[in-house]
């Protein structure tokens, strides 16, 4: 991990900043930076409210296990749902002739929010509610029921318990989830490119624009600013996430209609764009007809070529991410702190920034076109923080004494790994591998910067179609793309259930 991150993350970044020294005249970017921070702060706040509503609902309402598992699945799926597909979903739902307007127009209501601040906030909030849910949800469900019962005996109302007992205990995980939602909204790319308009650009989008306009000094300046803000928020989120809280048996109750209504509204907000994105192309036969008639001609390559490039990048990237994180996860679980620290470094660097850094290295040193290989490494790098966390938890399930017993029985390190460790960490490795494939397939900014249009992946092909008078074709290709990503995700979930332990 340390070698990988040093060579493929730290070196390119240092090289970038040395090759194109940032200018310290940031006054011309002040309004852009402030608007980006403000947008992310508001988006994260709305996501936090939505996340709290749903996680409170899950932790305090007695609902069927089936419904509970559906909500958890939606939350998990949102994590790997491609940004460009989510953006397409927002266009289909919130467009001037979108689904929402078709429903509301008969009542004389017309919604026109695309390219406004509200659109960006709604887009980011719904996209990030699952992040909040993931971080706070499990904490809330585990929060000890004894404490709440004690408060009830003392005569506290549910609102008072929520305000004075639950929130203060959960505050570290709430702040941590807020900061993660802030980070994702702050570095958002596909959603802002599609529904943000020129007034609400993120630094991520602006860096991409500056690179495409050859303003490398400007891009480098924004890179430095973005890295400082992102690194600060990411560090704070990481510190707060690991705080302990009193846990015990769950506490359910029957009352609380408000949380149910809020949970329903926010869940619909997440589901509607996702379902629209998936189903719009499938439901429209004309979309597929047009895709096969005109879409491929426009893109200059067919479905199999796009699939070839997508998987030629995603599979090696996932392999690298799995191998590196398996090694670093073991080191971390055995108490080596540096592995954990290095694994979190890519969190502090956005995808566009890392792609820009790779581009600067490629321009300077390499004579052949190595953009596909650079994308493999880029995608492996951006998957690393998550992969490391999963593998570290995986390694925690391997008791040290079993390895020692194997060694005493004469097994060497390789034998110990394959016959003792591997069966136990297999589910974590499968999860890392499939999630890394999904992350690579969904990534857009890096592909746009590094591929230079010479090849297309699913996400870049959908983006090119939707922004180039081939909207229907984009919806058709997007439906297939989302099905592929979901298929890989659920295959991973299925495979992790396989028990290799004899």
């Amino acid at each position: 991990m340390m070698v990988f991150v040093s060579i493929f993350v730290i070196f390119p970044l240092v090289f970038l900043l040395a090759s194109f020294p940032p200018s310290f005249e940031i006054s011309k970017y002040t309004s852009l930076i402030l608007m980006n921070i403000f947008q992310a702060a508001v988006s994260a706040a709305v996501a936090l409210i939505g996340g709290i509503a749903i996680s409170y609902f899950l932790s305090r309402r007695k609902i069927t296990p089936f419904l509970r598992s559906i909500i958890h699945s939606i939350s998990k799926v949102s994590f790997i749902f491609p940004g460009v597909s989510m953006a397409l979903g927002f266009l289909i739902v919130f467009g001037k002739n979108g689904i929402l307007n078709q429903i509301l127009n008969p009542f004389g209501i017309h919604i026109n929010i695309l390219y406004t601040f509200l659109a960006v906030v709604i887009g980011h909030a719904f996209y990030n509610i699952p992040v909040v849910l993931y971080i706070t949800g499990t904490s809330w469900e585990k929060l000890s029921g004894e404490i709440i019962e004690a408060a009830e005996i003392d005569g506290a109302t549910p609102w008072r318990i929520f305000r004075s007992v639950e929130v203060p205990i959960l505050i570290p995980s709430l702040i941590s989830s807020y900061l993660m939602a802030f980070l994702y909204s702050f570095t958002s790319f596909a959603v802002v490119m599609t529904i943000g308009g020129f007034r609400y650009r993120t630094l991520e989008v602006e860096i991409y624009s500056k690179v495409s306009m050859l303003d490398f000094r400007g891009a480098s300046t924004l890179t430095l600013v973005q890295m400082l803000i992102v690194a600060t928020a990411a560090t704070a989120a990481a510190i707060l996430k690991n705080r302990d809280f009193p846990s015990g048996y769950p506490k359910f109750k029957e009352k609380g209609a408000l949380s149910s209504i809020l949970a329903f509204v926010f869940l619909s907000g997440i589901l509607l764009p996702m379902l629209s994105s998936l189903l719009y192309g499938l439901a429209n036969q004309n979309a597929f007809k047009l895709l096969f008639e005109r879409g491929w001609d426009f893109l200059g390559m067919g479905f199999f070529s796009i699939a070839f490039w997508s998987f030629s990048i995603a599979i090696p990237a996932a392999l690298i991410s799995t191998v590196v994180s398996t090694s670093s996860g073991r080191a971390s679980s055995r108490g080596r702190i540096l592995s954990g620290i290095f694994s979190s470094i890519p969190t502090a660097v956005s995808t566009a920034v890392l792609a820009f850094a790779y581009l600067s290295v490629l321009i300077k040193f390499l004579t052949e076109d190595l953009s596909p290989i650079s994308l493999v490494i880029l995608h492996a790098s951006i998957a690393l923080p998550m992969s490391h966390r999963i593998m570290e938890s995986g390694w925690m399930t391997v008791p040290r004494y079993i390895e020692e017993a194997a060694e005493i029985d004469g097994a060497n390190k390789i034998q110990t790994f394959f016959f003792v460790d591997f069966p136990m960490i297999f589910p974590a490795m499968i999860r890392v591998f499939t999630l890394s494939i999904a992350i690579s397939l969904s990534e857009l900014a890096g592909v746009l910067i590094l591929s230079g249009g010479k090849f297309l992946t699913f996400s870049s092909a959908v983006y090119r179609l939707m922004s180039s008078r081939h909207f229907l074709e984009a919806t058709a290709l997007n439906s297939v793309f989302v099905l592929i990503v979901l298929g890989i995700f659920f295959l991973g979930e299925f495979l992790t259930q396989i028990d290799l332990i004899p």
Partner: protein
Amino acid sequence: MKRLVIILILATVLSFSNLVVYTYDSMVSGLAKDIAPIFESLYGEKVSFVSFGDAGKALSRLIIEGEKTKADIILGLDQNLLLKAEKYGILMKYKPVNYTKIKETLRPKEYLATPFDYGSIAIVYNTETVKNPPKSFKDLLDPRFKRKIVVEDPRTSSTGLSFLLWTVAVYGEKFTDYWKKLKENLLTITSGWDEAFEMLERGEADIMVSYLTDGAYSYYYYKSAKFLPTVMKEGMFVQIEYVGIVKYTKKLELAKRFIELMLSDYVQEKIPLRQWMFPVTDVKLPEVFQKYVPKVEKMLELDPKEVSKNLDKWISEWEEALGM
């Protein structure tokens, strides 16, 4: 893993063994489909069209790649992007054998690149949603068009750059004051023409910067006048598109043949209904052009030397006015 890396490198290199043309989106789905087969049958070589979204991005890519580029031709630079290409010295001069076929007024002094089509940019509106279209730049500032107009980014789009220069031609040094007011009526700024037209077609925007031939396009494809251009009383602005040979080409003879092919009657006759621009040679225009492209009384021009001298300054002033 090693084998996969080798396959990836080979696949990348092999895919560029033909004549490679860098261009923009609508070219690939339009005129390129006519050029590729005829080029192959004439010269026995394949031609690959690689699109980067818009012409500005294609040029940027070429500049980034420099001598390592696989491109032999860049197709679709307008007179303004040509200035940038000249500044970076990435084109090779070539005077076509058939240069006399080009209309005299369009012939360049130096053949850094060859013109292949031209047309006037125009404000185009959706006739179903805009009943009283703007007829002047001042009209575009009317509050009734608030958040209804979409323009292209002059830093990435040749259409967007032409529109910026059009405002300079109309307002001179005070063009930024105009943009500060226009900003209120802008729905968004797209990176290319295709993205803007997509928004017009999908009904998200009502007005955009496009071309004078859009009405003819509308009649030709939809037999209706859904999207019409409006002739501005201040005068219109011409955009000329060029094709140039990349300085680093290793297939010079083939590249020269491509330029000649662009001036052939076969390609020039295809220009009106594929590019929706005017051909640069005297070929017959289709009926829909004669009937539905409005006549222009006044054409505005900017001195290329002035443009070359001030372009960077104007773009920074535009960025400041728009808060970009």
